[in-house]
């Protein structure tokens, strides 16, 4: 624990996470109760919890707070089991030297896996403390209680502090999966909307982001990406930046960067440097992406669901339908471009990163630097919003290569063009759905076929740009996330199949992006359900409720319909003659079929002359089991709704045959305040149920709810996002889109 603390004391004292790291090393304000070497084994209580002399507790969390509020919610979960004021818990996140590897912060698993694991560690600790207290007081555990960092005889003033009971030792305890959890009826802090501790600093400028962090002696770097994907560097004219004091070119094969002592000089060098590139490897024509996905090449076929007859005989009066849906590539679109600092020294490496996966990055860095992982320390710092695997790991690898080449700490900062042009993209998804519905609105047949880029099994890390450019070997393949989930409806259908044609390639480097796959799949499935309802002249809410048995699913649909004052009728509305057409839509998802239940309702006004959709109201009833922090969960649901509306209304990564061309906010527009609807959220607290995640699920049905509302208002069915005014107008005028 010596290498990391080369940065300024001031920065340390400013930043929340940093202050924590500082104190955990033993030179902070509180002496540790236990001084044995720390374990980072997730099977050990000591990996998560450290008791201090004053009764406060350090909490070491392998998951990171990307803005989604784990920083308070996980404290609440631990505090509850220890009967401790959450303010007495100090937390360090995502520091590979100080926190156990709980896996990447991804897939909406922060609370439901990471938090639950820490809760169990705290429950194990509680059990041990009660046992120690029982010996110390000569009383049965049933007569003892935990309070304010002490164990005491119930109701008596003087107890013994956690540290006293442990006699300066660590817990030395395996995490006990059977350690009793507190009865939810007795919860005091879980379920309360406690404020997030990082919010004040984010509102005053005192919060230190990755982009704000400084290391003494660091160089500022910018990367020069080729004008075409896969192009190689033919020549660099280093004299072209000779007039910029201190600016230097650092090149390793096709990995080309400039470094300078100050940031503005690095930026000018990036803009000024003259270089020549070869032709790229060529991208497919954008307009042909969906068509080409049908042609492969494929890695394999997979049948996800198969029940009933393959070709059932349809009852009299049944109506058969089929439709194709397409979801294009999207950027993560973080407001702050990716950034990282690396300090590669002979005796050890430190990388500061906003990655969602600091522990995984450490292993990756070990591979590409050829340095044992034990000598690499990865420190997480908050970045701009991270909604999956964005450019942070790329920036970290770039900073590390440059630090090794220059012998100095290096700060890599991407530009806006780098970010929108080169961040890994949410992959394209194509779905065909065919089915049949009887005259009463019962689904009699359902067939989903999906064309999806396949996540390469066993791929250790997203292939990083700089490594390919520098000619450093790395495992090749695709990262996409679990993108085939929710391709089947949650409704009764006697005959159903879901088939995936797994694609070997993707047009641009893909990665998992919030609710990976589920947004497009729900868009298709829940749109098609409404198409069936219209064909059978059924009300979409009533038809859904009739086709479901899942009580928690039924409840979110009913609550959403109630918030919308839903009056049953078939869609679309009868009178669609106005200059502004209004409609409503609903969509439902049981996320991944085993997590959060929610329904999403949209009310839209569509302007005939322009094709502009104004979403006036978005409502959502949401059941994610136990809600640890209702305000944090609400913020996540708001975010899911608005971000996915942005994707469905505006976003489409544009590219020519060489490269991505939507590289700024005018060519890759996202939602602005003018298009933000009223948002109403009904969170269902299930205090005695497991927590299921709120960071992604509400994204899934947004596209379908919007499509269904657009159809209800206008009678036009769009099956490709984004629903731009041009696309809506063309459809209203009967032109192909």
């Amino acid at each position, binding site marked *: 624990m010596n290498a990391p603390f080369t940065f300024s004391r001031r920065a340390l004292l400013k930043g929340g996470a940093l202050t924590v790291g500082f104190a955990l090393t033993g030179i902070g304000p509180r002496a540790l109760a236990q001084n044995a070497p720390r374990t980072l084994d997730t099977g050990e209580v000591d990996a998560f919890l450290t008791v201090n002399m004053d009764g406060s507790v350090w909490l070491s969390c392998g998951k990171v707070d*990307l*803005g*989604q*509020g784990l920083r308070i919610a996980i404290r609440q979960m631990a505090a509850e089991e220890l009967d401790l004021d959450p303010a007495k818990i100090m937390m360090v996140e995502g520091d590979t030297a100080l926190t156990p590897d709980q896996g990447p912060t991804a897939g909406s698993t922060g609370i439901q896996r990471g938090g639950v694991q820490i809760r169990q560690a705290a429950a194990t600790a509680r059990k041990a403390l009660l046992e120690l207290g029982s010996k110390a007081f000569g009383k049965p555990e049933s007569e003892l209680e935990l309070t304010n960092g002490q164990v005491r005889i119930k109701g008596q003033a003087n107890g013994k502090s956690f540290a006293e009971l442990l006699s300066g030792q660590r817990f030395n305890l395996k995490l006990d999966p059977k350690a009793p959890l507190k009865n939810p009826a007795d919860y005091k802090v879980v379920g309360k909307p406690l*404020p*997030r501790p*990082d*919010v*004040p*600093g*984010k*509102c*005053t*400028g*005192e*919060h*230190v*982001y990755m*982009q*704000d962090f400084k290391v003494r002696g660091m160089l500022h770097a910018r990367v020069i990406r080729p004008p075409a994907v896969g192009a190689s560097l033919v020549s660099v004219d280093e004299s072209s930046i000779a007039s910029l*004091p201190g600016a230097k070119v650092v090149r390793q094969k096709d990995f080309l960067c400039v470094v300078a002592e*100050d*940031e*503005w000089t690095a*930026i*000018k060098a990036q803009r000024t440097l003259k270089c020549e590139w070869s032709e790229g490897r060529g991208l497919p024509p954008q307009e042909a992406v969906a068509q080409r996905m049908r042609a492969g090449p494929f890695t394999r076929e997979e049948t996800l669901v198969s029940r009933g007859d393959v070709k059932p005989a349809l009852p009299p009066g049944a109506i058969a339908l089929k439709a194709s849906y397409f979801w294009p590539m999207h950027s993560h*679109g*973080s*407001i*702050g*471009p990716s950034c990282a600092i690396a300090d590669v020294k002979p005796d050890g490496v430190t990388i500061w990163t906003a990655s969602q996966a600091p522990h995984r990055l450490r292993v990756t860095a070990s591979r590409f630097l050829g340095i044992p992982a034990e000598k690499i320390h990865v420190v997480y710092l*908050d*970045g*701009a*919003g*991270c*909604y999956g695997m964005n450019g942070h790991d790329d920036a970290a690898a770039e900073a590390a290569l440059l630090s090794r080449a220059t012998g100095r700490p290096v700060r890599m*900062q991407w*530009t*806006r063009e780098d970010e929108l042009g080169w961040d890994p993209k949410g992959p394209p998804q194509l779905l065909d759905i065919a089915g049949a519905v009887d005259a009463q609105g019962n689904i009699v047949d359902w067939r989903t076929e999906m064309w999806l880029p396949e996540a390469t099994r066993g791929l250790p890390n997203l292939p990083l740009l700089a490594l390919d450019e520098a000619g450093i070997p790395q495992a090749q393949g695709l990262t996409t996330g679990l993108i085939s989930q929710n391709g089947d409806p949650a409704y009764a259908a006697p005959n159903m199949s879901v088939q995936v044609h797994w694609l070997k390639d993707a047009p641009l480097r893909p990665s998992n992006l919030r609710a990976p796959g589920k947004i497009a799949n729900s868009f298709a499935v829940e749109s098609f359900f409404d198409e069936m309802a219209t064909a059978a002249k059924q009300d979409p809410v009533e038809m859904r409720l009739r086709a479901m048995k899942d009580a928690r699913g039924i409840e979110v649909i009913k609550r959403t319909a109630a918030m919308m004052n839903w009056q049953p009728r078939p869609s679309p509305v009868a009178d669609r003659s106005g200059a502004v057409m209004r409609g409503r839509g609903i969509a439902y998802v049981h996320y991944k079929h085993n997590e959060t239940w929610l329904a999403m309702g949209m009310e839209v006004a569509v302007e005939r002359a322009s094709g502009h959709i104004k979403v006036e109201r978005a409502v959502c009833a949401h059941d994610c089991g136990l809600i640890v922090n209702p*305000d944090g969960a609400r*913020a*996540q649901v*708001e*975010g*899911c*709704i*608005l*971000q996915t509306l942005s994707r469905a209304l505006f976003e489409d990564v544009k590219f020519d045959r060489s490269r991505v061309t939507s590289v*700024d*906010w*005018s060519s890759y527009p*996202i*939602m*602005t*305040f*003018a298009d*933000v609807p*009223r*948002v109403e959220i009904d969170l269902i607290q299930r205090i005695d149920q497991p927590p299921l995640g709120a960071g992604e699920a509400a994204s899934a049905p947004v596209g379908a709810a919007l499509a269904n509302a657009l159809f209800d208002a206008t009678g036009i069915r769009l099956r490709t996002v984004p629903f731009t005014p041009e696309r809506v107008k063309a459809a209203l005028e009967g032109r192909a889109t």
Partner: protein
Amino acid sequence: MASYAFQLNKSPRTVESDDPDKPLLYVLRDIGLTATKFGCGLGQCGACTVLIDGEAARSCQTAVADVKGKSVTTLEGLGNAASPHPLQAAFIKEQVPQCGYCTSGMIMTAAGLVARNPKPSEADIRNELEGNLCRCGSHVRVVRAILAATGQGG
């Protein structure tokens, strides 16, 4: 090396630069005022918004030479955790930020609005913030916080 003198967060400040075109954004960040964020460098996202003579301006599009003799206010100049500006206090109370990277620019744009329109309507607020982008979806809370800060909450 030329000198540029201006008021910075109510105190006189002189900075040196060999480039009169150096954006104010980097002048501020180089002296440790990092609340002002780089988001696009194109004047499109609003993350770098500061007040110049009381009006919201994009510091990435403002050359250091152009603030000579003017008054520049950054988020740090509005208030701090111990003594927050009413807008900052409202943003904290409403728990506005998620990642929070856009928050500084949101508050500074709002400060510019409130300076000339102490009771902005929701439409005024949305209109003013049209050039401030947020990816996390904090918009609803941003509007609520500004209404609350101007005595129009609840």
